[in-house]
């Protein structure tokens, strides 16, 4: 494939908060402006803009891409808004990548934003329409059901217990204590805190779940010849992948995310990765629930099926372990503004691979990272491989 090389050259993000005073376009602008300032670019130097934001129903605004466009600097520019549920945050940089790799544009601003708090009384209400209107909604479902059903299937097939899984929540919330934007960072949280938290939809308990959050993240992409003028530490997007599984989710075995594997294989192939366990130095899989980090690590082919919990218990996925996972603190610790969360992971890899992650820095000069996000009815896998 003769695509041009594309680098991330700048990044910015807002604090992730439960309810922001700022409007959605204001949050979008804060992150976009910060990303531009971080690489000393002006808006007129941006040739295209890609926006990622999850359901319009959160904001009650028709055509959310247009609603946010002012804050994304999109006027008079080619602009595209994509939405694949929670997968959006890693899908948007893949879209930005092909804007530049194709040769159509030399620079592209990618911004993801979510303001969930406007949706009352609880943004879960916006997710009720995820269920089939005829065969499922009459049963009175809510979003927690699908996670609880998937978590129980994963646990039952592999004979796992809640303690093994709760270790992920502890790791990520502790890691997040070092992230300046985090909502739920806690350096002292323990496994017993997780296991004693309220049962919501067994096996899901309150501290197994990431919070409702408002926030925005932005990154700047540039073609190689432009990237090298902007920074001496460009971080290359080496591979992208995305895949969708069937909406007939009750006809699939939920214990394994084959759609994550399909997206990962596409991204690894493009990046020339043949042995991910040796060639990937940091992983930022999507962790809206603690078991999902494990589920996704297996789909990313970084651990054998059913073996990610054991690796976690052995400390392999700590920041100073053999394969640091979610050094950012993930969704469980930093927060989960649906579309922005995935891009937060991309920004984290950007800072980590440049040695700029401060107290969260993974030691040993990591060279390659993989970010992954997930969405819809347990359907979408989006994967990006980055390297220096």
């Amino acid at each position: 494939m003769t695509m041009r090389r594309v680098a991330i050259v700048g990044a910015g993000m807002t604090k992730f908060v439960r309810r922001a005073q700022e409007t959605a376009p204001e949050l979008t602008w804060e992150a976009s402006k910060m990303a531009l300032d971080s690489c000393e670019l002006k808006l007129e130097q941006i040739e295209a803009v890609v926006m990622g934001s999850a359901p319009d129903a959160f904001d009650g605004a028709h055509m959310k891409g247009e609603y946010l466009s002012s804050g994304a600097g999109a006027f008079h520019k080619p602009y595209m808004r994509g939405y694949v549920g929670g997968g959006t945050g890693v899908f948007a940089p893949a879209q930005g990548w092909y804007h530049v790799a194709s040769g159509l544009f030399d620079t592209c601003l990618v911004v993801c934003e979510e303001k969930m708090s406007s949706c009352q009384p609880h943004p879960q209400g916006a997710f009720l329409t995820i269920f089939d209107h005829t065969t499922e909604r009459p049963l009175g479902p809510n979003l927690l059901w699908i996670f609880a059903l998937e978590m129980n299937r994963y646990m039952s097939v592999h004979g796992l217990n809640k303690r093994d899984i709760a270790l992920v929540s502890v790791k990520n919330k502790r890691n997040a204590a070092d992230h300046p934007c985090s909502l739920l960072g806690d350096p002292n949280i323990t496994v017993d805190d997780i296991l004693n938290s309220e049962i919501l939809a067994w096996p899901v308990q309150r501290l197994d779940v990431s919070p409702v959050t408002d926030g925005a993240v932005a990154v700047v992409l540039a073609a190689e010849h432009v990237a090298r003028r902007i920074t001496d530490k460009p971080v290359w997007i080496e591979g992208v992948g995305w895949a969708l599984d069937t909406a007939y989710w009750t006809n699939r075995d939920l214990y394994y995310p084959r759609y994550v594997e399909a997206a990962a294989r596409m991204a690894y192939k493009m990046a020339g990765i043949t042995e991910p366990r040796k060639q990937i130095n940091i992983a930022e899989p999507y962790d809206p629930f603690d078991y999902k980090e494990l589920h996704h690590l297996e789909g990313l082919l970084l651990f054998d099926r059913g073996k990610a919990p054991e690796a976690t218990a052995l400390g392999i996925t700590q920041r100073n372990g053999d394969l640091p996972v979610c050094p950012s603190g993930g969704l469980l610790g930093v927060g989960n503004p649906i579309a922005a969360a995935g891009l937060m992971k991309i920004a984290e890899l950007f800072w980590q691979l440049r040695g700029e992650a401060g107290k969260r820095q993974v030691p040993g000069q990591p060279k390659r990272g993989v970010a992954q996000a997930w969405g819809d009815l347990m359907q979408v896998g989006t994967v990006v491989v980055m390297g220096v």
Partner: protein
Amino acid sequence: MTAKITAFPGTGLHSQDFAEKRILTTHWVPKAEYAWDAGVAIGRYLAELKNGKLVGVRCHHCQRTVIPPRLFCEECFQPMDEFVELPDTGTINTFSVCFVKWDMTRITEPLIPAVIEIDGTNHAGILHLLGEVGPDPIKTLKVGMRVQAVWKPAEEREGAITDIRYFKPV
């Protein structure tokens, strides 16, 4: 970058900001009503539910029988029109014991959603509820348990997934 930057934008609000009326907000309740057509395949599914039966559909090309029925096979893209009457028994593929509603208010009597693989299909499951599970379902329910549908009486059935009240362990 986070090593170099100390101030991040974004202002978190707290319940006190609202209690002390420092924040201005606007409220709106949308009006949206829908009348969804069941479609060819689900139309048949619902009609058979009214008759007290579960039906699936078979793809000859892929050699698989699935439920809920569909007009075409999403794997080989060919039409599926061989409807198959299925037993109303199955196996629990997964379940949850849920103590919250969608707005996170608590309920004391839990709802027990499950994916039930229906007998006679290729491990095809449907979403439904479990009932008559005893006082401690978290301890007593297990993936792999056999279950049987409990139907509403004929005169109460209306051609809906709720014509089955729930599935009970047998």
